[in-house]
């Protein structure tokens, strides 16, 4: 899958859900199941996620 699910986490940063390619679920089904209940989330393209993780813990969720 070339999609990711992002949501703001409780530590003030952003969490990124990485789908398992062989799980048999759609990205929407994974979002509904694995994103915390009550949290806003967005489905984005993997290309939108920075690959330089030097300051990973400083990443923020943008509405």
């Amino acid at each position, binding site marked *: 899958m070339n999609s990711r*699910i992002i949501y703001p*986490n409780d*530590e003030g*940063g952003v*969490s*990124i*859900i*990485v*789908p*398992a*390619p*062989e*799980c*048999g*679920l759609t990205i929407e089904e*994974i979002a509904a*199941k*694995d994103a915390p209940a009550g949290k806003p989330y967005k489905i984005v393209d*993997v290309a939108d*996620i920075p*690959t330089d*993780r030097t300051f*990973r*813990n400083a990443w923020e969720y943008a509405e």
Partner: protein
Amino acid sequence: MSTVAVTNLKHESATGNNIILDSSGNAAFADGSASTPSITNDGDLNTGIFFPGADRIGFAEGGAQCGEFDASGNFQFNSGYGSVATAYGCRAWVNFNGTGVVAIRASGNVSSITDNGTGDYTVNFTTAMPDANYSSAGQSQGIVLFQGTSSTTAYRVNTYTFAGTLTDYGTVNIAIFR
């Protein structure tokens, strides 16, 4: 196509029925044993399926028991263990890259991983565990530690350098046993 209608099948030398047929279309076989399985192969009569007791299904090869589903539904096999014993399954596993474009290489019963930050991941199960009392094994190029959050649906781990700093690694493996 012709049909032979019978109730039971019995070899002329057998003391009891070999196969009992009922009106529902079921066929019931004698218990058999590991040395003489009741469901076997013509030409290899000491290999097959037998019924060692109530609610049990046994498997034999070469006249010796090699496996069984016991009365509790546990699957038991030898496979080099030395005896037929219950096998405890890996209920979920994942191999993922925690660097760059974080991605899962391969997995089983894992719907996703959540990248929570540097060296901080949650493994999300496709099918939930029966409880949170499972055991895990983890490996990476550094140290993998239980982060302290586990549930029937997810398990969170951290990866550290040997100096104790949260760090991403190119290969992280997690396996869950229950």
